[in-house]
C-alpha cells in the first residue's frame, strides 16, 4: 500500500516549486504533416498533441450552420497516459465534459462567422498525464488553431490554482497530479489575456469568495504572462523571430 505522499515539506511545496511557480513548459508547433495546424506541448510531465482540421466541409451534413463554422473540440486520453492501470481507449464521461468546456474557450475567440457552413475540428490527445491536463490540452489546441491560420481575436491561456494544505488556505499555482489528488481544491482557469475575461472556470473544493478572487488574481498576474511568452516564442520560432534582412533558416 503506497503511503500518502506529503505535499508540503519544511514549509515548501514537496515538489520543490515556489507557490507561484509553474512547471517547465516546452512547445513546438507544426509537428504533424496532415493536420492544418498542430502543436506538441509538454507541461511538466504532461504531454499533449493537438491537431486542427478546417475550415472544411461539415460532417455529418445535418450539423451545418449557415451563419458560421461549427467548432468541434475533442479531448481524449491515451490508455497509456497515466501511471495507473491501463485506461480505456476512446472518450469517457470526464473527457466528454472536458471536450465541451474546451470547445467553449475556442468558440469565444475563433472568428467563426468568417466561415459559414464549414467545420473546424480541434483534436487534443493526451499522451502523458500528470495533473492539469485540461489546461495543457486547451493551450495546445489554441496553438494548433493559430498554427493552422484560423483567425482568432486572442490566444487564451491560464493554469490551475488551488489549496494544498490541511487548513485549506495555502493557494498555489499549477497543481501536479499528487497535489490535485491529495490537496484540498483545484480550480482550472483560462483567461482571454486581451480582455481579462474568464473563458474556462471549474472547481473542486470548498472555498470562500476571497480565496476565489485570490486564485484568479494569481492566474492573471503570474501564469498568463509566463504562458504568453512561451506561446509567442513557439509561434514565432518557425519564422526566425524577426523578419528583417531575410533571416531565415532553410
Amino acid at each position: 500500500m503506497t503511503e500518502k505522499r506529503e505535499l508540503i515539506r519544511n514549509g515548501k511545496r514537496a515538489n520543490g516549486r515556489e507557490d507561484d511557480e509553474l512547471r517547465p513548459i516546452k512547445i513546438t508547433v507544426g509537428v504533424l504533416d496532415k493536420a492544418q495546424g498542430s502543436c506538441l506541448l509538454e507541461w511538466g510531465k504532461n504531454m499533449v498533441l493537438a491537431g486542427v482540421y478546417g475550415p472544411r466541409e461539415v460532417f455529418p451534413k445535418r450539423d451545418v450552420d449557415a451563419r458560421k463554422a461549427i467548432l468541434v473540440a475533442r479531448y481524449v486520453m491515451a490508455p497509456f497516459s497515466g501511471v495507473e492501470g491501463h485506461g480505456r481507449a476512446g472518450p469517457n464521461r470526464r473527457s466528454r465534459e472536458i471536450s465541451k468546456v474546451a470547445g467553449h474557450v475556442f468558440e469565444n475567440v475563433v472568428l467563426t462567422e468568417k466561415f459559414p457552413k464549414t467545420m473546424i475540428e480541434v483534436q487534443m490527445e493526451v499522451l502523458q498525464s500528470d495533473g492539469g491536463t485540461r489546461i495543457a490540452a486547451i493551450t495546445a489546441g489554441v496553438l494548433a488553431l493559430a498554427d493552422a491560420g484560423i483567425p482568432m481575436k486572442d490566444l487564451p491561456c491560464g493554469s490551475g490554482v488551488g489549496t494544498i494544505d490541511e487548513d485549506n488556505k495555502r493557494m498555489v499555482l499549477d497543481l501536479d497530479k499528487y497535489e490535485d489528488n491529495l490537496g484540498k481544491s483545484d480550480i482550472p482557469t483560462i483567461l482571454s489575456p486581451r480582455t481579462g475575461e474568464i473563458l474556462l472556470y471549474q472547481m473542486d473544493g470548498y472555498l470562500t469568495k476571497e480565496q476565489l478572487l485570490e486564485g484568479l488574481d494569481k492566474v492573471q498576474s503570474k501564469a498568463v504572462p509566463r504562458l504568453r511568452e512561451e506561446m509567442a516564442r513557439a509561434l514565432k520560432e518557425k519564422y526566425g523571430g524577426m523578419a528583417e534582412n531575410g533571416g531565415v533558416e532553410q
Partner: protein
Amino acid sequence: MILDEVKEKFIKGVMREGKRTDGRAFDEYRKISVDTEAFPNAEGGAWVKIGDTQVAAGIKIDLSTPFPDQPDEGMLSVNAEFSPLAHPDFYPGPPKPESIELARVVDRGIRSAESIDLKKLFVKENKVLGVFIDLYVLNHSGNLIDAAALAAMAALNKARLPKIEDDKIVYGEYTGQLPIARSVVTTTFEKIEGQIILDANDHEEVASEARFTLGTGDGDKFASAQKSGNGGFTRGEFEYLLDTALEKGRELRKLV
C-alpha cells in the same frame, strides 16, 4: 486537397519511368527514427517516425484473470487507434476495418514468434499479468503497419515489470524488464501496375491495387503474413517478397 484520381495518375506516371516521386528506390525505406523515452508513465513506450508517418505505442501491464483454457498463461492484447489527428479522413467512432486489421497483424507477429513467454506472466492461481499494447496512429503518410509493428517491438524491448504487493500492482515501482525472447518486425509491400514497392507513402497507397505484409523474426523465420487489397500476386512476385522481407527485416530489427 488534390483528388485521389489526380494523385493516382501522377504516381503511376512517375512509376512507369521506373522512379518514385520522392526519388527513393523501389525497395528503400524513408528515414526511420525510434524514441523509446517518450512515455515514462507507461511500462513501455515508443514513438516511431517513418518519413512523415508517426505512430506511438504504449504498454501498460495490469493484473488480469487468465483465459479459462490457458490458466497458467499471461495475456497479450493489442489495440490500435487511428487518431483524427492523423488524416483528414479519420473520424472518431468505432474502429475502422483498417485499424482492426493493423492491430491484429501486429498481434499475430508477436504472438506467433512468442516474443513474450506468456507463461512467465503467471502470478498465482487465477491471477496473471496482462500486457496491453496500444498503438496510436498520430500522422498517416503511408505504411502504418510497419511503423506500428516497429513501435510495438521497440516498446516491448524496453518494457518494465511493475512491482506486485499484496495482490495489487504498485504503480511507479518496477522489478526488472519484461522478458522478451525475440524481436519481430513487419515489411509491407504495395503493388502498382505490376511493380512492387516497399514503404509506400500515402499517395502511393492510393494508387496501389494490392498489399502484402510479412512479419519476420530472429532466425530468418516468418511470424505473420497478410495480403490485402483486390489485386493478386504471382508466385514469382511472392518469392521476391519473401527474400526482400528477410533482408529488410534484419535491418529493421536492429532499430528495436
